[in-house]
């Protein structure tokens, strides 16, 4: 590997994260399919995720809500109904109990909304300064009801998303120390199983689903294009991005396609079934803004391309890691 120490960018969900997984973790543990969840005995999906979001309260949510949504969504993307969660907590000495109580209440409410039960957990406390308030880890188990996967996407598929992009990332950035700016954007953080379920039972042939979290839509389409060996064409004029998210990204020099979402699903389905998926999603409160944003072709193999608003083309690239705000 290129670096002899871990850089922040290794955690950014981009090329450096992939390098770690592919060159260190996957060979060490003999992991073959790198999906959002592992499928066990064709029946159960199993996944885990850790949450270190800063600040732990942000517009539209908090670390607790995120810790439930992130994990149940990883199960849902595997076509699995989320059932059980574990909850591991690393608390910083000095964390106000009132904050912890709020977060626990939020975990409880979100778990109820998502239809999962918290069945086991762990608590550790570290010295002041060793973590920022609290870190959470959740692992989840779900029952697999559909055969979907990132290698199943084919030419002719439609690419659909359920609503506005980039809202979680911008909401969190807007409250971050040293950056804070005024915006009315709130995080889209939400558990997606019931939305995904309605699309699955619509009768449409769904090949893959991904929640575009770290690395945003760009990382998602790059991943799928590589895994399925297809070309993915996005239409810039079709991308749902609010004026506020666009404005914030312009200001900070960020690309909305690279910004994290926590309540979005990108669905790859047979092109002729796009209408069914759209109808099913739009009937759900989390899918009102569903629309087709692109299509899958044979070429360019393993690559994602954007047709721009002025009629040009440009590559959609895997984000490299930590997104760096520009100078001017």
């Amino acid at each position, binding site marked *: 590997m*290129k*670096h002899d*120490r*871990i*850089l*922040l*960018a290794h955690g950014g969900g981009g*090329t*450096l994260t992939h390098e770690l997984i592919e060159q260190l973790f996957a060979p060490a543990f003999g992991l073959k399919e790198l999906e959002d969840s592992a499928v066990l005995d064709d029946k159960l999906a199993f996944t885990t995720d850790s949450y270190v979001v800063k600040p732990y309260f942000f517009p539209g949510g908090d670390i607790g809500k995120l810790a439930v949504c992130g994990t149940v969504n990883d199960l849902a993307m595997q076509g699995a109904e989320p059932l059980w969660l574990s909850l591991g907590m690393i608390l910083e000495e000095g964390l106000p109990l009132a904050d912890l109580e709020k977060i626990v209440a939020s975990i409880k409410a979100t778990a109820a909304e998502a239809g999962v039960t918290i069945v086991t957990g762990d608590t550790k406390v570290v010295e002041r300064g060793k973590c920022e308030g609290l870190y959470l880890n959740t692992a989840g188990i779900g029952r697999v009801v559909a055969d979907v996967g990132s290698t199943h996407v084919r030419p002719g598929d439609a690419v659909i998303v359920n609503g506005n992009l980039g809202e979680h990332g911008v909401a969190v950035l807007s409250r971050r120390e*040293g*950056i804070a700016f005024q915006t009315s954007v709130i995080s889209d953080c939400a558990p997606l199983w019931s939305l995904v379920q309605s699309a699955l039972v619509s009768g449409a042939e769904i090949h893959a689903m991904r929640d575009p979290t770290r690395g945003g839509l760009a990382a998602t389409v790059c991943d799928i294009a590589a895994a399925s060996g297809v070309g993915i064409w996005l239409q810039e004029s079709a991308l749902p991005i609010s004026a506020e998210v666009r404005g914030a990204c*312009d200001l*900070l*020099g960020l690309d909305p396609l690279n910004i994290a979402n926590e309540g979005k699903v990108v669905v790859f389905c047979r092109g002729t079934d796009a209408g069914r998926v759209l109808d099913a999603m739009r009937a759900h409160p989390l899918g009102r803004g569903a629309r087709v944003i692109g299509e899958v072709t044979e070429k*360019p193999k393993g*690559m994602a*391309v*954007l047709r*721009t*608003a*002025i*009629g*040009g*083309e*440009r*590559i959609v*690239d895997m984000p*490299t*890691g930590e997104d*760096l*705000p*520009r*100078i*001017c």
Partner: protein
Amino acid sequence: MNEALNRIAEQARRVGRNVTFMEVCGTHTMAVSRSGLRQLLPANVKLISGPGCPVCVTDTSYIDAAIELARRPGVIVTTFGDLIRVPGSESSLERERAAGADVRVVYSPADALALARENPDKQVVFLGVGFETTAPTVAWTIKKAAQDGVMNFSVLCAHKTMPFAMEALLKDQEVKIDGFICPGHVSVITGAQLYRFIPERYGIPCVVCGFEAVDVMKCIVMLLAQIAGKRTAVEIEYSRSVNETGNPAAQQLIAEVFEESDAGWRGIGVIPRSGLAIRKEFARWDAGRSVTFRESKPHPGCRCGDVLRGVLTPPDCKLFAKVCTPTNPLGPCMVSSEGACAAFYKYERKAAV
């Protein structure tokens, strides 16, 4: 949209010869790459990127000096984000941070000053990089630190100014430019008058341009119309924000805190009078006086200097996309998101490779 493209095509036919326009500013480079505009232009209109990405033109010796400061105990180095990955001769601020240095990304020098007030036992150094756009806020911060007697704050200054760099390119025999797409943000501060010497002395048209792809298209139409009509002038496309005279308060701040100096541009060399140095009155807040700048060499084979002068397009460099990539940048143009190489790699690599 297509109407703008049609007007470009129409004016390009009137001009009837090959023309090359330089977009001086990195944000324009991004707009061109991101919109796919390059492929839509008529064959006789070529766009090249100029030296207007502040990170890209920052000399290796400056990065080395910043690293030297970051390694000192009790020092917090604060910086705009895209500087932290820029390779110095041996390391980068990102790697120093992983090795234990206190390097923090801020969005404004005022945040760095606030950090100094909160940490009276630390020395807080802000990396002052950028053109006329960022210089006024840095000037304000230095002045404020002086007024309030904040002695643990200082700036490592590598601010640069645009006009003499543009003039250096015009004097360069290798560089062929038929028109300048002039930076919008810089001009908000300085006013469009800044470029008047270019048509007057060099007979080259200038248009001050906004940052959307639509702005760049309009700007190209205006440049072509000047050439076709055999006129040369400074015109303003970005009239919603830019006027002739600019922002006098910001200009005053720059003049109060900084003085003109010679400046080293990465890949180009020293351009007389193209830099801003902190005036002697504010020497206490000048971190540059406590470090030595050592001459340092860029990566052998790196052609960023030629890319910054518009002599080479990124894919012409042998390192481009092969060994030099955004995850492993060997030269500055690949590091900043607004660098010509990074923009080309990110959005137009398919056409190149």
